[in-house]
């Protein structure tokens, strides 16, 4: 792996930390969920209504308790993942209500889209997880969406996936399903199998839904991303340093709460902070400022000794075009170089998280592959890799195309594109296929050829039974 790029000096990290501690102790954070306030009160924090003022020594003490890395368990142990250290985990986008089609139209996302995206993520060697909430399946009643989504991840792939975070009850349903999949709640308590996304409500709030879910995951020993999305200029200050401090305060407050509930519970420091488009007020994510927030977040997570979530293949473009490509590459590359471990939204996202696109998913798959290759850096582990002998053999003026050394090594050393066109002009000119069209053909072919890994019939039946029972109770 490449060394991780530090965007901040140590002095700058300390400045952000100090500013954060002042925010947490002097301004405080509001928790709109009585049990959460109670937990913090019991732990000696100053409480005024829903507002909690944190003690800085206490914050540091609780953050110490969070593990610097942990293993997330998949139903196929070959797909278990280390979260932290040198790992990097890519997965599709999260939560988009719309699909943008290849011809630039928009429609509501459905359960059929959900299954297809999970399969595409399952098929790709560049995605280590199938993600969670990969689109909002708007054709499924809200009350039971979480059940259908978990089921989709389980039957369409054997990689790790994410659970629900929409309130305590739904979170617990998806944790119980993971429990059945892995052979019991006690099994997953020891070996976390599910991770969810807890978001603050910027500035300086957590809502009831998220806090309920946070408590469910912490109680059962499951992992969670605790993330803040500061929109600099609207939900946060327009200065980068101010917005970063605000984000840091919110994330640390969430981590402290999780550690109070269950010391040592695995948490991931999350950031999707970006800027506001100051003409429309919309979020804008495919930009250098977003990359700066992501990079600094990775460094802050290292400073606090917890894994980091951030960035992705992020863009404000509406279709899989040049803007989608250059914005996504910038954000995903900086995400990866600065040491983010857990990359939600690595693929498929268009228009600042509002939409998913199959074509974009394929383009981002390619980008992810390029970056994973880049991260491997140079291999200098053997004389063969240094290639002195073959350079000597060919000597001045020869070529390497017919050397065994070349034939053996090029596939290991070179990234092999699945989508990019490296051909000559004339061949391209015959059809003039642009990336959007090429990507459409690609995903259709991948889906056609995909075979989901088999799931034990007994386990499958138990999960289906649980889901049916919950459905009848919820609707």
């Amino acid at each position, binding site marked *: 792996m490449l060394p991780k790029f530090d965007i901040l000096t140590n002095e700058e990290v300390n400045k952000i930390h100090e500013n954060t501690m002042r925010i947490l102790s002097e301004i405080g954070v509001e928790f709109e969920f009585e049990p959460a306030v109670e937990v913090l009160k019991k732990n000696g924090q100053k409480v005024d209504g829903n507002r909690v003022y944190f003690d800085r020594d206490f914050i540091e003490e609780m953050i110490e308790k969070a593990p610097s890395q942990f293993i997330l368990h998949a139903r196929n142990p070959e797909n278990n993942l280390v979260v932290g250290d040198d790992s990097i985990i890519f997965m599709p986008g999260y939560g988009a209500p719309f699909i943008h089609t290849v011809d630039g139209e928009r429609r509501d996302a459905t359960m059929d889209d959900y299954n297809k995206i999970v399969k595409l993520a399952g098929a790709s060697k560049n995605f280590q997880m199938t993600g969670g909430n990969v689109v909002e399946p708007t054709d499924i009643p809200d009350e039971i969406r979480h059940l259908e989504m978990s089921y989709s991840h389980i039957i369409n792939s054997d990689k790790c996936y994410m659970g629900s975070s929409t309130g305590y009850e739904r979170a617990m349903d998806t944790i119980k399903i993971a429990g059945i999949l892995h052979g019991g709640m006690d099994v997953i308590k020891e070996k976390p199998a599910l991770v969810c996304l807890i978001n603050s409500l910027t500035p300086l709030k957590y809502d009831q839904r998220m806090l309920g879910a946070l408590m469910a995951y912490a109680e059962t020993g499951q992992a969670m991303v605790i993330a803040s999305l500061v929109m600099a200029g609207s939900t946060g200050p327009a200065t980068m340093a101010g917005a970063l401090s605000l984000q840091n305060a919110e994330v640390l407050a969430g981590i402290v709460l999780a550690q109070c509930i269950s010391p040592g519970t695995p948490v991931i420091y999350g950031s999707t902070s970006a800027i506001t488009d100051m003409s*429309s007020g919309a979020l804008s994510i495919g930009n250098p400022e977003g990359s700066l927030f992501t990079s600094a977040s990775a460094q802050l997570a290292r400073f606090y000794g917890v894994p980091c979530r951030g960035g992705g293949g992020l863009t404000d473009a509406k279709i899989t075009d040049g803007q989608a490509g250059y914005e996504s590459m910038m954000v995903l590359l900086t995400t990866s170089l600065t040491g983010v471990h857990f990359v939600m939204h690595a693929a498929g996202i268009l228009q600042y998280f509002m939409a998913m696109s199959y074509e974009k998913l394929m383009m981002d798959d390619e980008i992810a592959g390029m970056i994973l290759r880049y991260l491997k850096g140079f291999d200098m582990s053997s004389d063969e890799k240094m290639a002195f002998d073959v350079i000597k053999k060919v000597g001045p003026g020869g070529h390497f195309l017919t050397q065994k050394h070349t034939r053996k090594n090029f596939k290991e050393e070179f990234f092999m594109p699945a989508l990019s066109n490296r051909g000559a002009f004339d061949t391209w000119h015959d059809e003039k296929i642009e990336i959007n069209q090429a990507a459409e053909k690609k995903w259709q072919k991948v889906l056609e050829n995909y075979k989901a890994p088999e799931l034990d019939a007994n386990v499958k039946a138990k999960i289906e039974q649980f889901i049916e029972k919950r459905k009848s109770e919820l609707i």
Partner: protein
Amino acid sequence: MSTIFEEIKACIIDGDDELAVELAEKVIAEKINPVDAVHQGFIKGIEEVGAAWTSGEAFLPDVMMAADAMKAGMDVLEPALANCDKGDASDNKGSIVIGTVKGDIHDIGKNILSALLTAAKFKVYDIGTDQSPENFVKKADEVGAYVLAASALLTTTMKSQKEIVDYLEENNIRDKYYLIVGGGPTSQHWADEIGADGWAETTEEAIKVISNLMVNKPIED
């Protein structure tokens, strides 16, 4: 006289709400015609900001702060204006009740639209976040508005927009109001599905939709 109007205009453009209050108080203290102060001061200022925003020269903080200053000044003038017999002194294009629906506490989009509607010379009554259908209607009746604008950011709270339609229908008052909906996960398709009267993705479109609705009042009771 023209100086104070110029000052009012400038302070709206600057988005200085404290100065706007001060100048409004001065208008009253010096017995200047409040209707003239509105037309030649406040409205001139907000018009200029609105035009600059439309042409891309001004940004949201400029417009929103101007709208706040406008509101602060107008609140001071309101009693004096009520005593004037010059009729529609504020020259407003109509009243709108705006809020975020029940269960949802996101308000940035709503706040932006409120400010831009103010800049476009509508009278905006913002009832805040997490608001029940009853509250929308109650406010509308109180201020005599017939356009309700309901915002939702979450896929899980969109259904509260439908609950407003249900509430209006259950109380047999559906045809007394126009309901427009908006927010990240909403769409024209959604608006049609729940039977809303309008939808817009951006503030520019929302202002157009509302302006078109304002042309004809719904059925009077």
